Structures are given as C-alpha cells and as structure tokens.
C-alpha cells in the first residue's frame, strides 16, 4: 500500500490529515499523488501557457523566417533580412530609459504588460556600387503583450516568496494578459477540425463530404454533395455546383474505370457512381481538356478583373480545391486519391448511416488557444508592417536626390505591431483581413469576483456557433466529453451546453513537427501513395495511413504499425501528444500531431495490470520521480479523444480485465475546477451541480492574496472567510482552502416563523453580530487631472475650510484630495478639482483664478449609508496625465433580502433575522446560525447536501476535515456515510444527524428530531442594498416628460401593459387614469372644437388661438398625456391631419 503521507512534506499540504491519508487504501496502488504532481508541473491553466509559450518560442520564429526579406522595388540590390527574432523581457521605455515591468505595476498604473520583440537584421547600405552589408542586433520592431506566468513573463519560475515580493498572488493561475491595466483573457475557441473529411447531411438530407482546408497560404471549404443520386462539387469559386466526374477528369483522371477503381471495386459503389459518370458523359466531357473547358465556364468572374484571365479553373483546382493537399509539379494524383477517399466515405455513409460523422463529437473539434490566435494576428501585422516599410523605402528611394546615407533599418521601426496587438486584445475583435477572419468578443475581462471564478474563467471554452440557434445537438452532453470537458460546468439559458469548461486534467495540444513523423511512417512500412495504383488503394486488408488529414499511403498490417508507433511514443521518440488511432470501420489509421486537440493522461496497463507499481509511487513520494519521469518511462501517456476509442479504460485497478489497456488516474478529474468544489456531487441531481458551478463564481470571499493591493473597479470580500469543513481533493489542488468563499454555518433543517417559504432562510441575529456573512464592498472611483492642448491643465486645490461648501469637503486633505480612512457620505466631494475654462487655442500660461471653473467630483452611494475611503492611488497614465484612483469601502452585515447559497445549487434569500434567544437550541446548547426549510429537499434531491451536513458534523466533533470528492468513496477520497455515522455516534450524536431540540420561544422540546449540523454557505454578490429602489416624484425624460427608467436614474416603477390589462379587467378606471396620466405626464392643450386641431395660448393677446381657423372662438382646454400630444404633433408634421373629433 502506498500512502499519501508525502503530501504532508510539501507546505501546501500542511493541513492535510496524515491519519486519513495513511488509512488503508482500497485499490492496489493509489495514484492520486500523480494529480498534485501533474498540476505542479503544468499549473491550472497549462493549456494557455503552453500555447503562448509555443507561439513565443517557436511559431514567431517560423512566421518571421517565412517573411524574412524586404527588398526595394526601386533598387533590387537593396534589401533587409531578418535573421532572428525573440521576445525580450517585459519592460517599457520611459524617457529613453528602459524600465522593467511587473504585472502588478501594469495593473495599478493602467499600462500594458508587454515585452519588446527583438530582431537581428542584416541589410545593405549605400547606393550604386558601393553596397555594404551591415548587421544590427536586438532591434525592437514592436511590443508583444505577455501572458502572465508564461516563459517570457517576469513571474516565470518564481517561488512563492519572490512572487509576493513582486506583489503577485502565488495562487493566481496566470494565463491572461494585462492590457492598459485591465486583465484580459483570450477565451478558448471551439472549432470544427480543419483539414479533415467530415461526412454529414445538409438541410435537405443529402449526404455530403466537406473539408475545411486551412494552410498557411489559403483557407477554403470544399463540399462534395450527392444530390438526386448525382455527385457534385460545391466550391465558392464556381458559379454553380460542378459534377464531380468533370472535376476528376480535369485533374487528369480521364478514364472512368480508374475513378471507379480508386473509389473501390465494390459493385455498390460503382452503382452509386454511375449516374454521375453518365451525367458527365452527357455533358460531353471526356478528356482533361474538355473538362477544363467545361469548368472554365463555371468559374465565378473576379469582381474587378477587367480581362478574363485564362486557365483559372486549373489554378482553382490546384490552389483552392482541397487546399490542404499539396500539388507538386502539376501532379494532381494526390488530390484525386483524396477526392476518391471522400467519395468512398460518402458512399459508405449512404449505404450505412452509422458511417456518418458526428459534428458534435469532441474528436472532430479543435480548441483554438491564445497562442494560435496571437500568431495569426502577429503574422498579419508583421506582413503589413513589412509592406508598409517597403512602400516607405521605395518612396524615399524614388526621390531624385537623397542627402544623407540611406539606412534601411531606420524605416522599419514602427508601432503598428504594438498598437495592433494592443487594440485587438483590448477590444477582442479579431479583424484579420488577410485570413478572412472577423470574430468578435474573443477576449474578456478576467472575472475577479471570486478566486474560483477567475480560475474557472481560464478554462472556459466559447462556442463556434452563434447562441441563438435553437438546436439541441451541440448543446447535449457528448459521451466523448468524458474526462476532457466538465459535464457540470455550463451556463444556464441561451448559452447552455455551448459554453463548456475544461476538466481538471485536460491538456490541449500544440502543433508538432510533421516531417519526422512522415519519415518514421515510411520507415515502419507505409507504402507511398505515389507508388500505388487505384486498385491497390482499398485492398481488403490494407489500411490507409492519414497524418493530420493527409493521406500518406497504406499499410498492410495496421495494428502492428499502430503498436510500433505507440511504443515509439511511449519511449519518447516522437512527441507525447501525437495520437495514433486505428479506425477499423473506415480502414484507416489516423495519426494526429496538430494543435488544439484535447487529451488527458492515463495510466498504461498491460493485459489489465497497471504499469505503475508501489515502488513508483514511493519514489514519487520521496521526490525522486516527477510526473515527467512517469511519462518518459512509459508508465503514463496522453490519449486524445480519438485514440481513446482504441483503448479500454478501467475506472479502478481492481476492475481491470485482460483487455484493459489503460487505467484512470482518478475518476473525479472528469469534473472541472468549479464543479470540483461540490462535496458529494455524485449524490446530487445533476442540474443542481450545474447551478452551483454558476453560483460559485458569484460567491464572495477572498480573490487573491494581493486583493488589498489591487485596484479593481468592484471588489466583494468576505470579512471572515473560512475553509469548508467538508473538502474535496479538487479544493486542495486548486487552492480553494486558502482562498475560500464562504463560511461554515450551523444549519437546522426545520420550518420556523413562516418567513422561510420559497427557499428563504432564517438567520440568527447573534451570529450576524459575531461576524457571520459580513462583507466588504469596494468600489473604485477615478479622477483625471488633464492637460489640454493650449498648455493649460486641471488643478487640484486646497478646499475652503469655511463657507457653505466646507461641509461637503470635510474629508479633503489640504492637497484637495480626500484622505484615506475618512468616512464618506453620499454627496461628499472627494476631489476639489478645477478645470480651465478655455482649453483650446493659443498657449496660455499662468491662468488667473477666474479662468478656472470648479469640476469637483462627488461621491454617490446609497442614501443614509456611510462608506470609508480605503485607499488613494496616484499614477501617471499613458498620456502623461495624473490619474487619481480612490477605493471606497463599505462594510455590510447581512440584511433581509441578501442572497445566500450552499454548495449544492440551493440558493435562498435571508427571509428574516431572529434573536438568538428565540432560536431553537440543542441538548448541548448549540444554537443554529441559520434555519433552512425542509421543503428545499424533496424536489431538488440534493442528497449531497445532507451528506455534507453529516460529514461536517462528524468533522467538527472529531476534529478532522472530512472529504467528499466526486466518486471518491471507492478510492477513499470521500468518506462513506456509514463511517460518518459511526463517528457521529461515537461522539454522542444520532447516526442520522438529527438532534433533540428545544424551542427557544416556549422552552419545550420540539415534536421532531431536527437534522442539524454545519453546512458551507456562500454569500452571493446580489444584495438588496444594491437593488432596492422606490420613488415618489422624481426625474423625467426630456422628450416625453414621463418618469425616467431604471434604478440608476432614480426611475419610476412602470405600470406595464400587463398590469394595465389587469386594471382594465378589474374596471379600476380612475386608477388607470391616475397612473397613466396624472402621475406620469399630464399636459394641458388648447383644442379647436371646429377643426379638431391643436391651438395655442397667445400670451400677448392673452387669448387662445387656433392657428388653422385663425381665430379663438371655439377653443377648449383639454388634458392629455404629453406623449400623446407629442404623437399628434409629429403626425401632423408628417402631413397627417389629426382631428380630435371634438
């Protein structure tokens, strides 16, 4: 037995109970220890960091190498060549001095955390024949925003103490950027895999094969569809659909027989192909030349091309049609085979519906991460910069007489890359015209409401589809999501099921070199495509070998080939994330090394025997081994969704059989970070876990160790946050036990007072007095001391200490800025600022006092509440203006209407607050902190909550934190109810958690035993103080003179259409009149009784006049809503006479 005792050796495990971990372990080898090791190596947001690191270390070099030359068109001898590129340290230039940046500094002073992109260049100088080649090193071409904790970041590899000295929270996961002081995360984008054949049906039910090709050069979508038994090609570059046989012929497959052979000799296939062949013959297309002629007619004309360029059809087929298959020397054979494979798979699907691909299958999806997105953006910006530089160089060179020596390197430094990257990251709009990419909302401000919300935000996957579509398929839980994506964590409402979250152990791959894999495949006996005839292609026992969607060739012994490849991977000879998947149905071996696949680590088993033995875990415990050694020695490997189909994975070692190939590390890792907080989630009704995943992000607590040094716009903190009594393994791994968001409340499940209906909870006033649920709300206010174009600037001056305004300026210091620690009330002035009256025109130094007008800023808070000015920070912003930030703190104790929730999706508002002496008490004098109505249980079926109560009760009485990890009972990561009950009994409680309770009001025992014990409760950010609103008379909208709308504008409460209907139905006519007119927008108008049009009151004549009749004889006064008068007048302006019919 291997115990987890070594947990205790690490400081972060100091709180873990040795005894529990040393308890007898169920399964042969406890592999849990791998998990903290995995997370230690990879961190919680490894996917983002890996992706960014790959971009910064590899991809950026490739991009620069591919576009490494700027050559003047005017003088082709002049050129500039990029030799190397790298990202420097995060820093910025201030007054020509380089200053190192830390993320915290950037957050506070609203600047971008970026590092210079440094290039080494080689360029020619001089002119004519006296050319010289010069080199320059470390030239900055722009600044790249740096992902926190990536290999370029100042925080990389720092330990806890160093992080603290940099003002950073050691528990912060990183994985986001700091752009202009705001933290931005690039959401993981979910997409359909590129360069793969996908067989599905279109809207009409026609079977189609589609390939979205994406290469460095082009992007295209090719669709081959069977319509009315004939097969056509759909390509944007063609006006209409094109018969596929014509395309085949155009690519040189003139003989129909060859096509049939390539597709496969099965007569059913040839039968399906026959109508298409016939159609082609009907169109008189027999030869390649005829086919090209035919296609040429179908080509869409280019929008601005004046003359018809010839042979476009051929180039379309070469460059756009299935662009991922390369054509060398006009040899279309590879493309023909590819089309044939597409056709064959289509026909399989027609004959057998099971062969259809599932678009929602996770194996057909790719996740696009920040690195990939940034590389696209950078490539575009880099190319644009080079083009611009070239243009500039050419214009300079074009000038007849140049005075100074021409230095190319001077024309290259621009800030287009810096600005482009910064703007895209801060708006989130990826507008890359070069790659026809227009996507919005790719970045989001990191949610800093709670620590778990922040971590959860990094694992969020945003969907490819727009959310409005009413389809259930993509929203449903896919079996292939197992272990990769969290089954619980998804929002409710329109994005339900579309927005997903990664599971705990998921890894997202980055691109891997293809070249070595290709040559390896050929070495392992893959027969090259070029050497095969169409006939040989689909021989019964041979499998096609596909690498990243490309057909490499075929192999006669696919299983042997796959085993060999896997062995090589386990030996570390090829990348650990390369997946080898034998698809027996399609007679294909798919090898994938592309980026964006999701995969997860699993323990390898030989004939059902785990490769990880006790001594391995012991070595891990002793620190001899790391996760990587496990990987290198082939004890653990990463499987992606496709390869999982070739594996038989046992949940536990004990359940493994002969055929088992892999064993799960820990079953609770199928859940994500947010769902990992829930104790006993496997005992709950599943939607409850989903609700909790959404609510955990709104819970108040601690957000980071540096929470009081940050300047967040809005910050909710709990005064006394606690660590849950009933924890899970995930909580410890994530660090929720250090940055908790809730308190352990003693809950009695009973009805009390009637103020607990509809999930309301009754709270104990003494508990609140003692600090339960107390929270701090901090808000940021910003004042800017601006400089204007005429040189004048705002000024902040000493406030008057006497006079009528002095009272509102009490909290100001002599410098005119409010002092920290002062108590601030609504309408108080917190900065005594003055702005110059004239800000434009000629420079005006030394303005007299009269030229300034006051522009003070006043605090607006809840009426009657006092807040405290927590901190004042002064900094210089990007435009060199002084920026003053104020944090205002408001401490609140819970009040009636505040929202609370347990960790089981059971939210409720505080219904009433009751004195402790009225509260029930138990035989041992325990008085609950809150009372929850038992009606919350039957319909919600949150059994997990009941077990949490039992477990925490046993926990407090035995003095040991109990565990409730998901599916943890067999592996000992969750305490069993039986054991908990025994503990309860040992400490004199009833096994079922019910206590004998006395009523606090009558003093007599209650007629039932009450289920009572601690439950971890979260206080949610929704508080009545921020929401309550009512008004009598108040502001009105200018245009309609009706009351304003919304709480922020002190708006009225609208009697809406439906409320009005009720009043009509009831017949309360005078109430309607009063609500809709008197209390809204009453107005008096003059109406002419004769013509029915509006008149007016002439104040000079002191008479009413009708402007149409030109007299005032028949004028009456009438009351109507101002909005109605407005309508009448607008209509009459539109020349619709509107007569009142009086």
């Amino acid at each position: 037995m291997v115990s987890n005792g070594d947990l205790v050796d690490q400081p972060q495990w100091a709180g873990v109970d040795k005894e529990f971990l040393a308890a007898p372990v169920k399964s042969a080898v406890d592999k849990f220890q791998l998990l903290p090791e995995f997370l230690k190596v990879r961190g919680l947001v490894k996917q983002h960091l890996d992706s960014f690191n790959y971009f910064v270390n590899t991809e950026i070099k490739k991009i620069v190498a591919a576009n490494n030359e700027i050559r003047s068109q005017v003088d082709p001898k002049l050129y500039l060549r990029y030799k190397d590129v790298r990202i420097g340290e995060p820093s910025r230039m201030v007054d020509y001095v380089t200053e190192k940046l830390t993320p915290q500094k950037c957050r506070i002073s609203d600047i971008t955390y970026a590092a210079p992109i440094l290039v080494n260049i080689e360029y020619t100088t001089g002119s004519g024949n006296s050319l010289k080649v010069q080199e320059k090193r470390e030239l900055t071409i722009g600044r790249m925003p740096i992902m926190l904790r990536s290999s370029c970041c100042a925080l990389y590899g720092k330990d806890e103490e160093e992080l603290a000295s940099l003002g950073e929270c050691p528990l912060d996961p990183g994985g986001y950027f700091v752009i202009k002081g705001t933290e931005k995360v690039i959401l993981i984008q979910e997409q359909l895999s590129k360069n793969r054949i996908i067989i599905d049906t279109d809207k009409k039910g026609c079977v189609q094969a589609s390939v979205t090709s994406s290469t460095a050069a082009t992007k295209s979508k090719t669709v081959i569809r069977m319509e009315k038994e004939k097969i056509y090609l759909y390509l944007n570059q063609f006006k209409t659909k094109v018969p596929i046989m014509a395309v085949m012929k155009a690519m040189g497959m003139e003989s129909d027989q060859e096509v049939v052979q390539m597709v496969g000799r099965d007569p059913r296939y040839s039968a399906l192909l026959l109508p298409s062949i016939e159609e082609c013959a009907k169109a008189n297309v027999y030869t390649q030349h005829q086919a090209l002629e035919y296609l040429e007619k179908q080509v869409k004309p280019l929008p601005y091309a004046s003359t018809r360029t010839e042979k476009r059809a051929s180039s379309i087929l070469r460059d756009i049609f299935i662009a991922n298959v390369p054509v060398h020397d006009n040899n279309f054979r590879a493309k023909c085979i590819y089309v044939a494979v597409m056709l064959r798979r289509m026909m399989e699907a027609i004959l057998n519906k099971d062969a259809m691909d599932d678009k929602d299958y996770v194996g057909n999806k790719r996740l696009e991460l920040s690195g990939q997105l940034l590389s696209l953006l950078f490539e575009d910006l880099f190319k644009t910069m080079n083009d611009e530089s070239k243009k500039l160089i050419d214009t300079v060179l074009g000038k007849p007489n140049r005075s100074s020596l021409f230095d190319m390197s001077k024309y290259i430094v621009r800030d287009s890359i810096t600005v482009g990257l910064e703007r895209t990251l801060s708006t989130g709009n990826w507008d890359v015209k070069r790659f026809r990419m227009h996507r919005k909302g790719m970045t989001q401000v990191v949610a800093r409401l709670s620590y778990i919300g922040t971590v959860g935000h990094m694992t969020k996957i945003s969907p490819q589809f727009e959310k409005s579509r009413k389809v259930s398929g993509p929203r449903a839980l896919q079996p292939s999501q197992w272990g990769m994506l969290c089954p619980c964590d998804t929002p409710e409402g329109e994005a339900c099921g579309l927005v997903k979250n990664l599971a705990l152990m998921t890894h997202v791959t980055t691109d891997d070199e293809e070249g070595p894999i290709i040559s390896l495949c050929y070495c392992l006996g893959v027969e090259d495509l070029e050497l095969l005839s169409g006939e040989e292609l689909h021989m019964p026992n041979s499998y096609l070998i596909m690498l990243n969607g490309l057909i490499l060739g075929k192999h006669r012994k696919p299983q042997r080939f796959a085993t060999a490849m896997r062995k090589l991977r386990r030996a570390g000879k090829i990348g650990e994330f390369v997946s080898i998947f034998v698809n027996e149905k399609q007679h294909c071996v798919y090898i994938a090394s592309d980026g964006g696949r999701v995969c997860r680590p699993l323990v390898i088993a030989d004939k059902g025997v785990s490769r990880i033995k006790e001594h391995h875990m012991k070595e891990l415990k002793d620190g001899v081994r790391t996760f990587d050694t496990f990987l290198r020695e082939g004890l653990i490997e990463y499987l992606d969704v496709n390869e999982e189909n070739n594996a038989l994975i046992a949940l536990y070692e004990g359940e493994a059989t002969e055929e088992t190939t892999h064993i799960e590390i820990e079953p609770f890792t199928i859940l994500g970070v947010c769902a990992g907080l829930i104790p006993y989630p496997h005992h709950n009704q599943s939607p409850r876990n989903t609700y909790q995943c959404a609510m955990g992000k709104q819970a108040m607590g601690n957000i980071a160790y540096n929470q009081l040094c940050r300047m967040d716009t809005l910050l909710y903190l709990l005064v006394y946050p606690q660590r849950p009594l009933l924890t899970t393994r995930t909580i410890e791994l994530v660090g929720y036990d250090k940055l908790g968001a809730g308190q352990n409340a003693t809950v009695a499940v009973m009805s009390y007072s009637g103020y607990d209906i509809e999930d309301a909870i009754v709270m104990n006033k003494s508990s609140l007095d003692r600090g339960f649920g107390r929270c701090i709300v901090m808000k940021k206010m910003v004042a800017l001391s601006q400089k204007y174009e005429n040189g004048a600037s705002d000024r902040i001056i000493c406030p008057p200490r006497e006079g009528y305004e002095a009272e509102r300026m009490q909290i100001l210091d002599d410098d005119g800025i409010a002092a920290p620690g002062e108590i601030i009330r609504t309408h108080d002035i917190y900065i005594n600022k003055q702005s110059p009256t004239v800000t434009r025109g000629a420079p005006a130094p030394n303005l007299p006092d009269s030229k300034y007008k006051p522009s003070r800023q006043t605090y607006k808070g809840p009426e009657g509440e006092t807040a405290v000015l927590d901190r004042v920070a002064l900094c210089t912003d990007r435009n060199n203006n002084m920026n003053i930030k104020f944090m205002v703190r408001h401490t609140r104790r819970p009040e009636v209407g505040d929202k609370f929730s347990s960790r089981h999706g059971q939210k409720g508002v505080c219904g009433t607050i009751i004195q402790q002496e009225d509260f029930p008490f138990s035989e041992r004098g325990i008085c609950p902190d809150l009372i929850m109505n038992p009606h919350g249980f039957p319909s919600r079926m949150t059994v997990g909550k009941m077990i949490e109560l039992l477990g925490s009760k046993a926990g407090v009485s035995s003095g040991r934190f109990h565990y409730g990890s998901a599916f943890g009972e067999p592996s000992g990561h969750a305490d069993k109810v039986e054991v908990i009950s025994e503990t309860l009994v040992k400490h004199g409680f009833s096994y079922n958690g019910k206590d004998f309770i006395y009523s606090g009001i009558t003093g007599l025992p209650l007629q039932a035993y009450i289920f009572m014990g601690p439950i971890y409760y979260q206080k949610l950010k929704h508080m009545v103080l921020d929401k309550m609103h009512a008004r009598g008379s108040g502001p009105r909208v200018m245009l309609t003179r009706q009351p304003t709308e919304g709480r922020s504008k002190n708006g009225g409460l609208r009697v809406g259409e439906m409320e009005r209907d009720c009043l009509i139905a009831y017949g309360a006519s005078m109430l309607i009149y009063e609500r809709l007119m008197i209390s809204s927008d009453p107005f008096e108008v003059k109406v002419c009784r004769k013509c029915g049009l509006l008149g007016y009151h002439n104040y000079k004549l002191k008479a009413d006049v009708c402007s149409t009749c030109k007299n005032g004889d028949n004028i009456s006064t009438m009351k109507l809503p101002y909005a109605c008068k407005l309508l009448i007048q607008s209509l009459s302006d539109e020349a619709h006479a509107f007569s009142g019919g009086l």
Partner: protein
Amino acid sequence: MESTDGGDEERTTKGSAWDLPDLPTGTLPPHIQLQKTRVVCNKEAPTNTENVQYAGAYAAAGVDNTVRLDDFRENFRVEVIKLTEDDMEFDLIGLDASIANAFRRILISELPTMAIEKVLIANNTSVVQDEVLAHRLGLIPLNVDPRLFEYMSENDTANEKNTIVFKLHASCAKGGSRITVKSEELKWLPNGSEFLLAKGNSASNQDSKQKTYTSFSCSQDSLPEFADNPIAPKHADIIIAKLAPGQEIELEAHAVKGMGKTHAKWSPVATAWYRMLPEVLLLKPIEGDEAEELVKKCPVKVFDIEDIGRGVKRATVARPRNCTLCRECIRGDGWEKLVALRRVKDHFIFTIESTGALPPEVLFTEAVKILEDKCERVITELS
C-alpha cells in the same frame, strides 16, 4: 440519583379505558401521569412535549392542575453540580419549562454588560479595516462589573459613570518581524479619553482644559470599586490584529453598558441553556448477550452490567444523566420495546457559560432579579 420514582406504574403500557376506575380516585391514571410529567423520546420523534397548563385539565379524574405556590415552594430545589470561574451547571427541579426558559432568555439577551461600542481610530495602517477592527474590539469580553455603571442614552455625555475608555497603541518596528496585537494591549484610561476634541472654538477658552471626547469628573481609579481592581479585558490573549513591519494602530475604545438583545457583544454568556433530565428505563429485564450489546451500543456509557448470580448478567441503567439522546440504544428491531428514553419535564439541567464579566452564579441571580422586576411591573400595570 432520584430518577425512577413510580417507575413500576409507568412500566405498564397504556391501559384500556375499561380498566379505569369508575369513580375519580384523585390520582391520575398512569398513562396520563406519564403524558404529564415525561417527554417520551421515541425512535422517530419525541412525543408528549407539551405542558398542560389549564387548571381544570384533569378535573374529570378529580385532579386539580392548578399551580399552587405552596406546592412550588415545597418541591422546588436547586442543586449545583459544577461551578467553576466561568461555567456552572446546576439542576432546577420542580419548575415549569416556561420559567426555566425565561431565565435562559434573560441570561442571553437582557443582562447588561460593558462592551466596546465606540472606537476612535487615530491611525490604522494595518491590513485590518477600521470597521472590522472596531467589530473585533467590540466582541472582546471585559472584566468589569456592569452593575457599577449606568446606561448611556443618546444625548448623554460620556462620563465616568457610563463609559470606560481603553487605549491601544501598537506598532511594529520597521525591519523587524510581524507582531500580533492581543487584547492585553488594551490599556484602561481611568481619566477618560486623551483625544482632544477638534471642533469648538478652542481659541476663546484657552485657559480652561481642552475638551476631550469624554468628560470625566473624576478618575475612575479613584473610585473604591476599581482602586485595586483595574479594568481590563477578561482574556489577555485574544488576537486583535497582526502588524507587518512599519504598520501601526493607534486608537481609543469606549465601552458602554448595553444588553444582548441590542448586540450579541453585550451578552454576558457565551451561551446558556438547559436540558431536561434524561430518564432511561429498561422495560424488560435485559440479560446475557443482549445486555452486553446494549452496553456496547451506548457511546456515553449509560448502561452497566451487574451480575445477578449464577453467571447471568443483567443490564442496569447506571448513568442516565449522561444520555445525549443519540438513540443508539433504541436503534434496531425490537429495541424500542426494551428500552425507553424519556425526559423529566420539570427537571432542568441548566448550564451557564459566562464570558467573564460576572461569575455565572451571579449572572443567574441577576437574571432572577430581572424576572422579578418584570413580574412586579406586570402586577403594577394590572392593578
């Protein structure tokens, strides 16, 4: 212990109505007696929890249910079980639950104590926010007899009769290590506040002493009560805040008299509660293995085994007072027929955990006085 009085009658199960005597005998039939005096704690739920208050409730049986002062005088007993500095456990016997509960309620919410109510913060550069610091200070129990002070109402000025002033000045030297500020650093200022009142035209009366936030007419330590008994927090080791190098707290805390119903900090007890005396009965003699099992079942060792000769072991109820009502002994098939768990309705085991301002026995007598006052008030209101 005196628990099983009249146990034999009660052991009989409910008799049929036909077995009842035709004429009132002046005593209650056993099952009614049981209902009246015991709470029966069954496996699923307790029954007979109510008290019968109506004087004529048992008139049909010829029993008068009137509350009589003489009876009460005769039967009422108080037995102190445990008394330490802060805790006290005693039995109240022969009392209605409502009276016992009244004491409990008064103890929790109506007995006054002194607690810090106002905190004047001159400087606080620690991480603990001002409000939180003030809240923490408020909850510190003070070792002072509240009876020596008066309540301070809204428009009263703070004087030596209604306010106690403490000073806290802690700072952590730069370059040193973190320090913990504990409640022992709260220093009593017998002369009242030292902070000068900023407002007012100080220029006009230069000669007179400048005003502070309190106006004590004399020093509190000159009063005989405090002369050799300086006022301080009850516990010296309550953590108030932690200071990092360079941080400082300077404040003055004003404690006033108040009641627990306003804020829990004024509650003189950590908690006060009672439980009814447990009564455990063996309905049938339990012998042999069953007896062993019963003894093993109970986690608080209510039962013992006695040897009744010839190697036969019989279970006895040795320590019924220990029973926490975990109901283990009646769990399982048939056990409910063997063991009965009951509570004596007029016997309360009362526990007071004092926070330290007053010793628990004084607290209880004070509570009795308050109840007395209230009764008198009712009587005067009525007459």
